[in-house]
């Protein structure tokens, strides 16, 4: 099996599964219980939180565990909107965000907020100039992703963060679901107030994640109840899952340097190859992009057909965000990048690698595509 859909999800590390199973066996107590079993679970929870805080160079009290990226994004955006609506009702985000950001913003528009969606250039990147123009007296939140989930383009969050430091009223949220462990992001120096991370994107388990909430930043919870997670997310903590998340995060950070240079090398090579193919356009920026994602538009093909044909050869890639790819429309990210008229938006294919990906895997992909693409194009021409 050749798995090249690591932006959709990754295979968990065996160590992560071991942590989850072992913690379930040994530390099943409720951390809120006063007895020994509760206390043990609480200790594990605290140590897991500390482990993650250390990796982020943050305080443990700034790490709020959630069920993953979508919940973290919802908690950040709705949380700020609700906590700050008396100060203003305008939000700024980008046209290429993950659906969990875009649809949260669309929901907020139905309850009286206004939202500016920043456009992107041909490389899929937003600009500081557009941000500057979008800010109004009413603006309370800017939410920008770090690494795009479809193209791997890196957004200028550093530049944005630096600029936004001047605005006392504006909170800055970064969706770092695709970037964590792949592209360095110093939360402290960038001046980020909220940051979303999801475990299953770096070989952790599904249903794990956290939201970094800078100390002093107030948000309204989505789930009320027992006061867990600093009153921000009620419900008995899933201690084994949280421990497994800490494990995955630590492993991702430890392996980061070696793996990313290997990934970057392979991506570069793949870039050259696609670039040299006839009728293929690389949608991922050559320089400012994450080391593991490569998005290409292959002219006169349908991505669904290519995915199916590759899958028959046991090679697994995808077209757009898994959260949106069952709807038969064009990629929203590529539409924003290229516009409605451009065929590239309808023919995007995403290859996303991990530490498990080998050069041989990529050779197999190239060979398969060289065989499949002409066949598909031929069929398409006959049909039309």
């Amino acid at each position, binding site marked *: 099996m050749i798995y090249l859909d690591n932006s959709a999800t990754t295979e968990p590390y065996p160590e992560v599964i071991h942590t989850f199973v*072992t913690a379930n066996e*040994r530390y099943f107590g409720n951390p809120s219980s006063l007895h020994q079993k509760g206390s043990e679970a609480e200790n594990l929870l605290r*140590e897991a939180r500390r482990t993650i805080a250390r990796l982020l160079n943050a305080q443990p009290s700034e790490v709020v565990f959630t069920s993953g990226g979508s919940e973290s994004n919802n908690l950040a955006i709705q949380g700020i909107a609700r906590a700050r609506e008396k100060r203003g009702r305008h939000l700024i985000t980008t046209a290429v965000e993950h659906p969990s950001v875009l649809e949260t913003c669309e929901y907020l528009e139905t309850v009286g907020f206004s939202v500016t969606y920043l456009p992107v250039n041909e490389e899929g990147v937003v600009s500081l100039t557009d941000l500057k123009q979008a800010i109004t007296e009413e603006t309370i939140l800017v939410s920008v992703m770090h690494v795009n989930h479809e193209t791997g383009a890196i957004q200028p969050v550093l530049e944005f963060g630096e600029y936004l430091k001047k605005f006392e009223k504006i909170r800055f949220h970064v969706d770092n679901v695709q970037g964590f462990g792949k592209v360095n992001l110093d939360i402290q120096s960038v001046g980020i107030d909220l940051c979303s991370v999801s475990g299953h994107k770096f070989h952790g388990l599904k249903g794990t994640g956290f939201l970094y909430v800078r100390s002093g930043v107030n948000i309204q919870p989505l789930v009320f109840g027992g006061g867990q997670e600093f009153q921000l997310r009620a419900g008995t903590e899933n201690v084994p899952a949280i421990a497994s998340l800490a494990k995955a995060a630590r492993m991702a950070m430890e392996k980061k340097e070696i793996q990313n240079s290997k990934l970057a090398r392979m991506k570069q090579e793949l870039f050259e190859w696609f670039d040299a193919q006839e009728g293929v356009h690389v949608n991922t920026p050559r320089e400012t992009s994450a080391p593991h994602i490569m998005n290409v538009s292959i002219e006169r093909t349908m991505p669904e057909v290519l995915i199916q044909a590759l899958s028959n050869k046991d090679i697994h890639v995808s077209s757009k965000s898994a959260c949106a790819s069952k709807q038969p429309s064009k990629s929203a990210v590529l539409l924003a990048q290229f516009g409605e008229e451009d065929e590239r938006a309808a023919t995007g294919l995403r290859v996303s690698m991990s530490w498990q990906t080998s050069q041989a895997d990529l050779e197999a992909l190239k060979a398969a595509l060289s065989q499949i693409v002409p066949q598909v194009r031929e069929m398409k021409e006959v049909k039309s």
Partner: protein
Amino acid sequence: MNIEHILVRYGEIALKGKNRNEFERALKGNINSVLRKIGSSRAKRTFGRLIVELNGDDPNVVISRLKDIFGIISLSVAAKTSHDVHDIQKVALQLMKEETTAKTFKVSARRSFKKTELDSQALNYEVGSYVLRNTDDITVDVHNPDVEISVEVREHGTYISAGKVLGRGGLPVGTSGKVMLMLSGGIDSPVAGYLAMKRGSIVEAVHFHSPPFTNERAKQKVIDLAKQLSLYGGAVRLHVVPFTEVQQEIHRQIPSYYAMTITRRIMLRITEKIAAEQGALALVNGESLGQVASQTLESLRTIEQAAEIPILRPLITMDKIEVMDIAKQIGTYETSILPYEDCCTIFLPEQSKTKPKLEKALQFETSLDIDAMVDKAVNNREPSLISSDSPTDNNFTELL
């Protein structure tokens, strides 16, 4: 440009005359014990400064770890270059360009090595005008600059730095001897310990534990606090003293309105005895005048009489809010406010004497075998060494 060094500035210890050598050695030792955990950078002594040679370590990481060490006034990254004015100009410009938010600057040149062509004034002018010519939007402000480019000409080269990270001041830990801290788990006592460390003390701590009335979480909380303190003053030896029997005995024998006073007197005696065994010359606690019944002047006097050793009270004139600010700043506040019972809150009588009389206290104590109680508690204490990198719970290292 090579950032090879970090300049470590220290103020007060340079004033200490004959002790200066000892202080510099202590500071260097404290710095190196932190550096050894990071990588291969090491501190070296030169005229009135310590210089950390990075040997390839990340300067930001090194600075973030060093800024919490007592005795340091400020830290700056420094590039080393030759005595040649052109080299100095180029390096100064590069350093200035990294200070992206700065709008104004000034150059402060100093020479401890005088055999160079230009004197300090001339260097100020040459370097300053070179930076001005090669930047946009930056001006000179000699009174209140955003960035001060310091140029130090020494015999073996010129050190140039821009920007400064402030340290915590104080004296190097270890230069003032050892003290025994009474660490309860509340907000005040960790701050008192921190301040004792700031003035150069090595801190050991005593905690009174009364199972089953106080639970493991309360003890864990104190371990966490000791761990946080160890970031500033090195490993903390923590003595957990079993206190249940003492409290039960007091509860049985002493009228409730004097129970608090007698309890405190016995705590002092136990701590004093542990201090003597460990070679500590003073006790430290978090008392603040008038804060609670045990901290009125009358109470302080009646309680203090039980011990002969000096008692240092760094917080004695501070308001609660000032103490809380320090606690937040040093990272103990959030642990301190966790709501677990400690030995001071259990058995707390409804009414305590705010003005206990010494004669009365002495009289009540005759019904207790104090020496035996103290000896037993001291002998049964559990000592452990808590440091910032000791894992809190070994069971978890495999899991996390």
